[in-house]
């Protein structure tokens, strides 16, 4: 192979061979244009390419190895393998455990007991964590002498026996409590009922408007019952509107306000709920069925004022006379009672369908 020297540099020369390839070689005193043979050429780069392939294969193998190893490490240390539920009378503690038997997470079903407050069993052995939880429950009074502590273990079959044996042997020496180990999760029938919110007899009213009460007209029935509309109009500070008033549907509100069949006095009475104390008003207004009141219900409600118990009305409080006696506004009840009895007779003739 002959080469033509095409370029000279300090440390090398560029040659062109008969294959039109341009290569570098050692400059052994060459001159441009000279034809040379057997030059000392630059190292063949194909070897480097083979090394690259080897490196790529090794890198791929290393990546696969890391992936597989990472998967097994995750499965052993971080994946949930089994669950243990420690059930006492006051609370249940739900533990998630990995394959090594170490606790991953702990959850208390009844947060009131605060069994897990300032206590983190993460990373501890399941038996150690169970022991500590039980001891803490005993010290807090959640578990008393002679109580039975149930352990519900949800794990593959081959490990259940081992877990059961470990728990029973560990707590055997504790004479104060009895231990019951069962397989599986705590069954639904044995679940404690969910704590429901206690129903208080009265609710707090959240005022939305300014505290300055507005003025509304209270119609005080006069002593002369034979005359209609003989009420005495008296200015009484209006109690501020409450959010609970919004329980009335808009249609009902409008019907009440725009009912042409009602006299003004009656309209004011209905709007202002002058016959109700605040607590009583809330009870009625909170009634889900109030805006669905049928004519009968409306009449029945008014009959309540007369002291009769309304069986048809749902969740309508007992406005019997006995209750009136306990009511702070008993006097106004009595006064209004007479008035509503008269008006009830009049209003019952009107169309009360709007309350539906």
């Amino acid at each position: 192979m002959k080469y033509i020297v095409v370029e000279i540099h300090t440390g090398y020369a560029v040659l062109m061979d008969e294959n039109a390839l341009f290569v570098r070689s050692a400059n052994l005193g060459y001159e441009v244009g000279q034809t040379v043979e057997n030059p000392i050429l630059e190292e063949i780069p194909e070897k480097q390419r083979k090394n690259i392939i080897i490196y790529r294969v090794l890198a791929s193998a290393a990546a696969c190895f890391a992936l597989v190893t990472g998967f097994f490490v995750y499965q052993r240390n971080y994946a949930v393998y089994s669950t243990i539920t420690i059930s006492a009378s006051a609370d249940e503690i739900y533990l998630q455990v990995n394959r090594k038997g170490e606790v991953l997470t702990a959850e208390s079903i009844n947060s009131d007991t605060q069994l897990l407050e300032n206590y983190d069993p993460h990373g501890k052995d399941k038996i150690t964590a169970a022991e500590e939880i039980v001891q803490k429950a005993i010290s807090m009074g959640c578990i008393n002498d002679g109580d039975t502590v149930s352990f519900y273990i949800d794990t593959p079959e081959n490990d259940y026996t081992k877990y059961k044996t470990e728990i029973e042997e560990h707590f055997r020496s504790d004479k104060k409590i009895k231990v019951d180990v069962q397989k599986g999760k705590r069954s639904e029938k044995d679940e404690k009922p969910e704590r429901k919110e206690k129903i208080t007899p009265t609710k707090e009213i959240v005022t939305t408007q300014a505290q300055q009460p507005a003025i509304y007209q209270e119609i005080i029935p006069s002593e002369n019952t034979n005359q209609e509309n003989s009420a005495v109009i008296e200015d009484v500070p209006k109690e501020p509107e409450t959010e609970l008033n919004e329980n009335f549907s808009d249609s009902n509100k409008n019907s009440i306000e725009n009912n042409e069949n009602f006299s003004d006095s009656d309209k004011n009475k209905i709007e202002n709920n002058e016959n109700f104390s605040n607590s009583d008003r809330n009870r009625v207004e909170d009634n889900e069925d109030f805006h669905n009141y049928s004519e009968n219900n409306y009449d029945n409600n008014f009959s309540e004022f007369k002291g009769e118990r309304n069986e048809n009305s749902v969740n309508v409080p007992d406005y019997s006379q006995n209750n009136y006696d306990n009511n702070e506004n008993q006097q106004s009840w009595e006064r209004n009672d007479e008035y509503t009895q008269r008006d009830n007779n009049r209003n019952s003739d009107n169309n009360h369908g709007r309350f539906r």
Partner: protein
Amino acid sequence: MDSDRIVKRVNQAKQDSKQADMLIQDYMPFIKAETARFLKRSVSESDDELSIAMFAFYEAIKGYSLIKGSFLKFASLKIKNKLIDYYRREKRNQGHISLESPVSDETEGICIADTLQDDKDPYEENEIREATRQEIAHLSEQLAEFGVSFDDIAENAPKQQRTLAVCRKVVSYARNNPEILEEFLRTRKIPISKLAEVTQAERKTLERHRRYLVAVFLICTNGYEILRGHIVQVLSQSTL
């Protein structure tokens, strides 16, 4: 730090041939010292071993990276290995008489080469060499218009046989279709898309070896008879 400065210069020399020349020139004492240590004697400018050591130093510049440690140690190792390879190759010629050796001890200044009949005309060879030099200089000027140097072409030339075969196919097609070369000279661009479509070569391959194709296309145009004659075997192959 000196090592940081050297590394910085080496990285610059990788990209720029002039920087590489300057680096070799600056470290000539180092190269001479390493050569002398290997030869166990002093070296002169005319020694081939020194040229080989300088070439080894250039290869060390091209192949150096930080993971290989100190550059000077790496270069020293390269020089030593290159000289060992050179001596192993020269070992094959041991036992042969050099043409430069004198005919006899009595005749001074007359070597064996002078006694051999040489059909070649030295004057003719000089003229051919001068003409070749001029063609190469002209080609170098044209390549500079394309922003390419011979060193770039050596860097960019196909190394694998498979890629070389593809480039040959493209060159053959261009030679057989002069309009391609005319378009190339006119537009100063290689019609890679068209060539890739016709020769069924990968566009990516042609793009990667664009500089090489520029040099060969130029050689194929008028004015480079000597160079074209040198690669006649390549040009005569037509695989289309």
